[in-house]
């Protein structure tokens, strides 16, 4: 599995996510458990219905990998509230990243736009962690090449701060103030076997990959075009 967007330290690469998952510096402290995650998703679903005045034209687009699972869960909840099927899909942002030249090319994930497309609709982008904002910037570019939504909103499970671009979320599961020395790891049953959000410490030294693979600081220093 190659993720285009993992949550270890915000917008970071796959290898690192796996490395971090396998060798998470102890102790990683759970900040959300399964019932919490279910609860905040329900809340976000209600907020979407409320702000979209019925969610008739909402299209949920999850950003792979975990954003897609969150989008599907949100879609189920929306359907439960409105009684109508909810349009849900995925949006791969790999080809739009601004740090492509910092890594070997990544395998692509699936972009799946629901049948009626996004033109004139309210697109809600769904991701697990909002960090530097660069992933969302790439997602907006990717979306622009697919169609012209009426409006675009953003739903995230965790906002850990440290934005590098003028981007904010419309729906936030949990605001989690973090330091750059900390890692936020989202586990979802579909991918990881259980639901949890873990706050851990970055391995202090040696882990130069962390920096090389982006996240605040690294991207800011990079010469990659920000588009």
């Amino acid at each position, binding site marked *: 599995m*190659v993720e285009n967007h993992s949550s270890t330290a915000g917008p970071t690469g796959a290898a690192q996510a796996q490395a971090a998952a396998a060798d998470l510096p102890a102790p990683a402290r759970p900040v959300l458990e399964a019932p919490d995650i279910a609860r905040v998703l329900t809340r976000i679903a209600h907020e979407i219905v409320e702000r979209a005045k019925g969610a008739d034209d909402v299209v949920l687009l999850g950003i792979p990998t975990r954003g897609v699972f969150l989008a599907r869960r949100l879609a189920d909840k929306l359907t439960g509230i409105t009684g109508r099927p909810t349009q849900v899909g995925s949006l791969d942002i790999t080809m739009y990243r601004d740090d492509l030249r910092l*890594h*070997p090319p990544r395998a692509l994930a699936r972009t799946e736009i629901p049948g009626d497309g996004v033109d004139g609709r309210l697109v809600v982008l769904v991701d697990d962690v909002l960090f530097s904002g660069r992933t969302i910037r790439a997602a907006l570019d990717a979306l622009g090449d697919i169609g012209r939504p009426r409006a675009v909103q953003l739903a995230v499970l965790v906002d850990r701060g440290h934005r590098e671009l003028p981007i904010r979320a419309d729906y936030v599961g949990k605001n989690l103030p973090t330091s750059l020395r900390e890692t936020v790891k989202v586990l979802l049953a579909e991918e990881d076997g259980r639901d949890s959000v873990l706050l851990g410490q970055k391995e202090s030294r040696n882990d130069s990959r962390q920096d090389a693979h982006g996240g605040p600081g690294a991207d800011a220093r990079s010469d990659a*075009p920000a588009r």
Partner: protein
Amino acid sequence: MKRHLISAADLTRDDALLVLDTAEEMARVADRPIKKLPTLRGRTVVNLFFEDSTRTRISFEAAAKRLSADVINFSAKGSSVSKGESLKDTALTLEAMGADAVVIRHPSSGAPHRLAASGWINASVVNAGDGTHEHPTQALLDAFTLRRHLSGPGRDLNGRRITVVGDVLHSRVARSNVLLLTTLGAEVTLVAPPTLLPIGVERWPCQVSYDLDAVLAKSDAVMMLRVQRERMNAAFFPTEREYARRYGLDGLRMAALPEHAIVMHPGPMNRGMEITAEVADSPRCTAVEQVANGVSTRMAVLYLLLGGSEPAVAPAAATAATRTEESK
């Protein structure tokens, strides 16, 4: 993946699956209103063609442009190159122009290998067909087409029986396909008159037959190679009529194929020679689809070679399997 794509043998099974899976995603871009990705913005791809091949050139050109690369077409035929400028000097010129990738078609077997190994340039070299040696992107697009019809995204071609018919001796398409399709697990059978099979073919990882009718019923796909009429004059076979009778694919032979089997052709087709119009125009013939798949496949190759700081690393077999499950 290696830095250059010279031979289909350069690709491991994981590399090949990565290219094919990436090509699947690239193919979806073609269905969008904006058929363009920003990925190779600022990269320069040079199409260096020492041989006329409009089809292959425009396929690479479309692929590079859809990825926003700058494309320079250098048609070396009839230019200074044919007036004695060496491959080396041409390469040095391209290097000075800042080429990130050189897509090379050359009448001489081994020229792309030489370009990649000589130290003349730093760019990635993609072989777009060299002499009678190899044409790896053609094999990739053929594998992509085969997979779509015979196995499905994320899968290899394990156990699929592919019959390649025609002028194997002079065919770079055949060489690359034997290597790639067997890497992907397919069982390849070459069918040709003995004059059009290379010495030593018995050591290739495939079966060989002189009798097309004997293998049709056991084929999941038949790939018809273009047979050049000039070969007749060099006594490789007596007449076009005899060739067509013994090795051409007509409606009758197509009917002997299993229901699900497809007919492939790398183009351009010699209708009436290796393939009849009836077969060429039938829905089972994938020649046109192969052209479309060529763009997606070449986008994938360019992305994986040029899209990052270095060529893509194929995921390990285990993770590839996971993805296979997921994409189903």
